[in-house]
């Protein structure tokens, strides 16, 4: 079991919510104070370094034109961490290669980070959330197909060592591809891909990549994890090891239940601040017509309704794990067993106004009192046993999906 510490690098100091239409895409950058930005970037970098000192690994990501995530170039942050850290695995989840114009640039950047960090890169590729279509000016249509073509090109670039090759695909073209440097890890750094539904598991399992799922919760986790495990078993004749699956949830561990709930409420900023009108969530071609229509319908009552599920709701869904170390262990254990097991916990441990002190308290309690027990939990069983046990559990689908799930689970 590995735990990757994640913060989305929010810029939380926003005007009152009623004064702006959207936190993403068209929020004017006059709201961004470069002085405050300077503090925050350095704090987030310090936080990841602190995570390493507590024995955790590091996860970062990028978004564009949004206060939810100040980092528009994750490789830049990761390259700093490649130099500042020495032990942690460095997960980027991920490179939005459906929207990138040139996959070779991604192959080069990732190889560089891998070499500087002496082979600590874990390289994720994602299609990107719908709000990325407008900033990227890239059509959302056929994004998944573009992702896999860009992936093929990057893998070929990483693994070709005898001079230039050509790649002439549908969307991406190069005639003399010969990247310098090549990656440190051979034949290639580990690859991660996000999975949003049963239909996206097959190519991930086929390649034995790590399949990562964000906030699918109890309602959907088994559909996706089971899909991956079925595909993996069928294609490789063996059970998928735990380390091939990852789950991202919000985690806050406190000394007391009360303090933990306080911290977790602050973490919920990540969801509640996500004020986005339907049309940014719904670029043409991202969702099939039926889902696109549902989002249009959601916008009927006025756009930009924030996502306000309560902490208890989010905990019941398996999106948030919060409490004392014992409680958080129990919560993650329950979810872990229900899901059939996974070897990578992606821990969103800081968001919004969670302070430095609160962040460290939760990080320390997690790493010292929760994480070791999760490692034992994983070591106590096998993927086959855990899957069998999961299948015997009744489906917990009494928690309805809301707009948040539609937009975020991918």
């Amino acid at each position, binding site marked *: 079991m590995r735990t990757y510490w994640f913060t989305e690098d929010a810029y939380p100091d926003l005007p009152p919510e009623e004064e702006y239409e959207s936190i993403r895409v068209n929020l004017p950058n006059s709201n961004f104070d470069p002085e405050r930005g300077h503090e925050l970037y350095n704090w987030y970098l310090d936080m990841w370094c602190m995570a390493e000192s507590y024995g955790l690994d590091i996860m970062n990501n990028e978004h564009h034109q949004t206060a939810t995530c100040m980092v528009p170039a994750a490789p830049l942050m990761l390259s700093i961490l490649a130099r500042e850290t020495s032990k942690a695995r460095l997960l980027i989840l991920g490179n939005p290669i459906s929207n990138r114009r040139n996959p070779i640039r991604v192959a080069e950047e990732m190889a560089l980070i891998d070499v500087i960090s002496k082979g600590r890169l874990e390289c994720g590729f994602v299609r990107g959330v719908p709000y990325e279509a407008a900033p990227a000016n890239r*059509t959302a249509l056929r994004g998944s197909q573009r992702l896999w073509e860009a992936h093929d090109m990057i893998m070929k670039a990483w693994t070709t060592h005898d001079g230039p090759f050509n790649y002439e695909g549908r969307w991406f073209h190069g005639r003399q591809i010969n990247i310098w440097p090549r990656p440190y890890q051979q034949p290639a750094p580990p690859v991660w891909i996000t999975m949003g539904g049963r239909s996206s598991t097959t190519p991930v399992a086929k390649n034995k990549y790590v399949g990562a799922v964000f906030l699918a919760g109890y309602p959907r986790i088994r559909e996706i994890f089971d899909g991956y495990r079925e595909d993996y078993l069928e294609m490789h004749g063996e059970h998928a090891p735990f380390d091939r699956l990852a789950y991202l949830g919000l985690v806050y561990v406190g000394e007391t239940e009360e303090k933990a709930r306080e911290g977790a409420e602050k973490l919920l900023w990540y969801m509640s601040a996500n004020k986005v009108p339907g049309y940014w969530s719904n670029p043409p071609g991202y969702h099939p017509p039926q889902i*696109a229509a549902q989002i249009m319908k959601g*916008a*009927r009552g006025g756009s930009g309704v924030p996502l306000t599920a309560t902490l208890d709701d989010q905990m019941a869904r398996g999106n948030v794990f919060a409490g004392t170390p014992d409680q958080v262990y129990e919560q993650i254990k329950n979810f872990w067993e229900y899901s059939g097991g996974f070897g990578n916990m992606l821990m969103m441990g800081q968001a919004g106004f969670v302070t430095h002190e609160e962040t460290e308290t939760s990080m320390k309690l997690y790493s010292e009192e929760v994480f070791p027990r999760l490692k034992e939990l994983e070591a106590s069983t096998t993927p086959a046993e855990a899957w069998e046990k999961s299948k015997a559990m009744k489906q917990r689908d009494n928690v309805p999906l809301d707009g948040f799930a539609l937009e975020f689970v991918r």
Partner: protein
Amino acid sequence: MGANTETIELPVGECTVTRKGTGPQLLLLHGGGGSIADHPVTDKLAEKFEIIAPTHPGFNGTKVPDHFDGMPELVLFYLDVLDALKIDNAVLMGISMGGWLAAELASINCTRFSKVILVDAVGVKVGGPTDRDIVDVFGIPPEKATKLMYHDPANAPDLSTLTDEALAAVAGNRIALGLYTWEPYMHNPKLPQRLHRITAPTLLLWGESDGLVSTDYGEAYAAMIPGAKFVTIPEAGHSPYAEQTDRFVDEVFAFTD
């Protein structure tokens, strides 16, 4: 008026076509809202013409060939459509995005067309890089985009009254519109260098209150086409055929007499 709708097989893909009326051919290329073959305006136009109204792949639930990435594929697809439908000496009418398609087709080869009518058409950039010539319909709420399209917002369809199925159809058409117009947005930067090839008499017909593409845009577009006439229709927005149906038909008949 009796209409006949069929799906024709093409060398690549297929195309659903509605025909109505008898007389000289009028090839009607619809805009981003999908086929208007059922709209009453077509009955009026069919009093003088054989209306031939294909549905662009992807609209109204039709299939999109896998290789389609944008307008260039649609233009080439229509070369096959013109052959299959034996379009000859037809009046070519294109509305909005269909006007862009019409301008592309007429500027490739105008010999099949007797006259060209572009209605509140997109397809070119008339201003500088930072002029927003065409409203970004994907960057505003759909209900606002709908309202901008009408002179009288009360004429705009109310999305909130649609059934789930009808709303899914609207969403499907929006996806198709995105396919053809996403980037470069609603235009082809190379088209102005080809518009001189439109040799048939050309009319640009514009709703005076068009909130998506202004009459200034229409006038500048007309100036790019040799001899093109520019005519506005009062009290009409982006879809003058819907808001001022009779006036619209009168203008079309006057131009094609």
